[in-house]
């Protein structure tokens, strides 16, 4: 078996440090997800509303976030905040801010799409049965929207987890950063460590995202 330099994993607390890095990545994604989902629901609902100016602003926001590479957004918040507001957020906070802005934007578009995909006659037949507007939303529109939304938003969550690999660029010690540190520290004793470590990272990302994807597939099958 070729030497993958896996032995470095067992040196000191290296494996724990890697897991810790994954923990940081997951924590940032989780906080961002928890904030951006309700925000996305709100913005997405507003995007289907009647207020033209509000819709325009939200559209602009969505396009801006989409066009900008996440890395640029991270730099803008991390380095730009001091310039603009004289306030230096930590790397982790910057990451949370960017992921929340991004998540809310993407989520709002998913919500908008799910809402407009509910046919008009669903609203009408509900109202024809005597349901009020609120009841129509509660029992007819929202349950259907959520069913369409959950698989899509789970995909968004896995995308967010994967994209945390960028935040080492603003000094957050997440999994990739830990890996680089480990590889660097063992360059002479275990020059092949890069293969092994990145293989482990591959597995760890996979283990973090795969169950979520499975859940999405399951829900999709169950509700379609």
């Amino acid at each position, binding site marked *: 078996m070729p030497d993958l330099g896996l032995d470095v994993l067992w040196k000191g607390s290296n494996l724990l440090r890697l897991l810790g890095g994954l923990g940081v990545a997951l924590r940032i994604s989780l906080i961002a997800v928890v904030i951006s989902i309700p925000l996305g629901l709100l913005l997405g609902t507003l995007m289907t509303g009647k207020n033209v100016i509000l819709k325009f602003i939200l559209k602009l926001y969505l396009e801006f976030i989409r066009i900008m590479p996440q890395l640029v957004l991270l730099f803008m918040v991390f380095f730009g905040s001091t310039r603009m507001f004289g306030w230096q957020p930590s790397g982790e906070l910057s990451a949370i801010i960017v992921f929340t802005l991004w998540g809310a934007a993407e989520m709002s578009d998913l919500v908008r799409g799910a809402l407009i995909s509910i046919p008009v*006659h*669903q609203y*009408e*037949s*509900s*109202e*024809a*049965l*005597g*349901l*009020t507007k609120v*009841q129509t939303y509660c*029992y*007819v529109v929202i*349950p*259907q929207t959520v*069913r369409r939304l959950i698989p899509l938003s789970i995909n968004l969550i896995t995308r967010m987890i994967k994209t945390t690999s960028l935040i080492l660029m603003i000094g957050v010690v997440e999994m990739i950063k830990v890996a680089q540190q480990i590889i660097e520290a063992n360059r002479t004793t275990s020059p092949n460590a890069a293969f092994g470590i990145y293989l482990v990272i591959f597995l760890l990302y996979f283990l973090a995202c795969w169950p979520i994807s499975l859940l999405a597939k399951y829900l999709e099958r169950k*509700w379609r």
Partner: protein
Amino acid sequence: MEETILTVKHLKKEYEDKTILNDVDLAVKKGEVVVIIGPSGCGKSTLLRCMNGLEKTQSGSIKLREEAIEAGSGNLVQIRQKIGMVFQNYELFPHLTVLDNILLAPTKVQKRDKKDVKAEALKLLERVGLKDKAGSYPRQLSGGQKQRVAIVRALCMNPEILLFDEVTAALDPEMVREVLDVMLELARQKRTMVIVTHEMQFARAVADRVLFIDQGKIMEEGTPEEVLEHPKKERTQQFLNIFQFEKVQERKIS
């Protein structure tokens, strides 16, 4: 004297500046089956939708007994419980089972006891031959089955009047019959109904009164015999001719 359930007076309906319904008058008595026929786009659906407050009207009035039906008014939720409507497109709620589709409005709107409604729903489902489908989802049903469920869903609200808008128009021919049979049965039970249909044989069988609408007006009305067999207006005759097929040999080739 039979009481009048639904009254439409001088109804006028416009989309933008196109007049769809112009001065329509109609009174539906208790237990009466009124069938509306007319060319595509003449405003049949629009008239039914107005009767259920789904469309704003420009002038005139619609009343269920003494209560005015008006889009956007506060009492609409109350009134709609007394008006059952079934549309052309299958409009069951796809995320609910057949039974839950039926139970939703009686339990949430009328706040009736779930057990009672369930028993009633199952009885009605049995009547239309769908008792074994109570736990199925709409996507597992054929078009004809969906429409029968939609009818049961409307019935379960115990409405005073039922409105049907071309409920068989989107169905495959072999499923039309099963739905029409359910409606014939309802007519036998002396339910008050307003039915829009293109099925002339069915109209003849089910109707107490037939209305022919064209260009936003009621052109002709009377018993099925009068309107469908011996129409007085040329326009009605022309429309009915669409449903007749001449033998190929007899057709003049010019």
